[in-house]
């Protein structure tokens, strides 16, 4: 479990669940949710924003989406029960809204500019040899490339990749969020990883 200092520094999801678990213990079994909206917002503003950005691919739309998602969280907080993990519950709300939002708008995935194939190199191999400054540039280019490649994937690949690799959710939690069997998560994640690798390496 992450320490308080680590939580304050990066606010990973494990901290959000740790916060919730601690509050639940404090409140006692069978009680209602002990965390406040303020605490939930503080812990989940980054993950929800990051997910909305990946799925809408627009900062303006992500901002509007986040507002609606947190409004739904606020409304639902009183009825939240302990059967689900807090992070799973929050991501479920976010995913359900973002999915329906896209459908209602009939949006097509945004096509980003095609990559310059010359820049597609073995980042890992170069990183070990490069001086610090150069290493940072290369790392940044690698991140940009990963970001752009992710944006070109189909939505059902993007979401499963982001939840697993971006937010470190377990297969079980991803299955709950997406409401699919865990076997589907395994196969879909493998296909998504392959698609992302193909996009990055050309």
């Amino acid at each position, binding site marked *: 479990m992450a320490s308080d200092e680590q939580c304050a520094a990066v606010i990973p999801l494990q901290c959000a669940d740790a916060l919730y678990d601690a509050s639940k213990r404090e409140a006692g079994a069978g009680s209602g949710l002990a965390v*406040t909206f303020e605490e939930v917002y503080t812990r989940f503003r*980054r993950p929800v924003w990051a997910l909305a950005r990946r799925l809408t691919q627009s900062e303006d739309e992500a901002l509007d989406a986040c*507002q609606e998602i947190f409004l739904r969280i*606020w409304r639902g907080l009183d009825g939240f029960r302990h059967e689900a993990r807090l992070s799973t519950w929050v991501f479920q709300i976010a995913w359900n809204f973002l999915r329906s939002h896209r459908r209602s708008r009939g949006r097509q995935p945004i096509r980003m500019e095609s990559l310059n194939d010359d820049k597609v190199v073995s980042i890992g191999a170069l990183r070990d040899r490069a001086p610090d400054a150069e290493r940072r540039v290369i790392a940044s280019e690698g991140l940009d490339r990963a970001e752009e490649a992710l944006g070109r994937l189909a939505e059902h690949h993007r979401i499963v990749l982001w939840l697993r*690799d971006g937010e470190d959710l377990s*297969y079980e939690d991803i299955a709950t969020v997406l409401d699919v069997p865990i076997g589907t998560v395994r196969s879909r994640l493998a296909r998504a990883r392959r698609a992302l*690798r193909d996009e990055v390496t050309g």
Partner: protein
Amino acid sequence: MIDEKTFETLSRYVDGDLGPDEAAAIEQELAGDDELGRALADIRQLREDLRTLALDERPPEALDHMVRPLRRAGRPMRQRRALAFLVAAAAVLVVALIVVEEVGRSRLRSDSPASGGAGREAFVLKNLPAADEDAPIGAIESLLAGDDPEPVLVDPEPLEVMGPLDRPPGIDDSGLALKIGTILVPVPVIVGAEGLMMTLGVEEGRVTLCRPSEGIESTLVAGDVCRQILSVGGIGLDDGQYEAVVVRWDVESSPGPGQEDN
């Protein structure tokens, strides 16, 4: 070309999802297959990249601003209680309208030359019923608008007020209306379409502060609304804050000096 099944096994291997036998088998394959080794390295690298992207993400300050009313509002009222409360509030309003009309007639009578001088209007708060669990609770005794149209603020205790949620015909979906007597005043809100937030200050049983909450642009003159708030009832107290509060207008006249002489 790595087949689909092997790639899935590799993907699960990266996540530690394989049993000991499966893991040993794929490790044996990895030892003798460069293509598989490169795929493994790429998967791990991309995983690291996505994790870095996620942790580097910084939400804009605009999001904090947009969500601020929710953060200050505490928890929403439960639907069942809310419904019961709104029904009760509606009933109070109907009674209030009748009383207001009667008061108006009374004032006309007392203001007339024949009444012996200008009447002084007094408002007395009636508590909202609190015996029933589902009934609104938290009505504050003697929470009364004073006569002073511009009260002096002395460290008032703020209350977040949401509602009432009347939506008159012709009002855009993005806006709500605050009902003041029989007048519906459109008020824009920034959080969904759930309510109007006002900040009230209460001191010694008097409303000493009344303004739209921070971040809410109001097209009406807040004082026009606030001077007509006679009482405030609430649903539930949570750490000293109201989950939801509704403004009501419940007045009865008491005889002014001129009337006492009659």
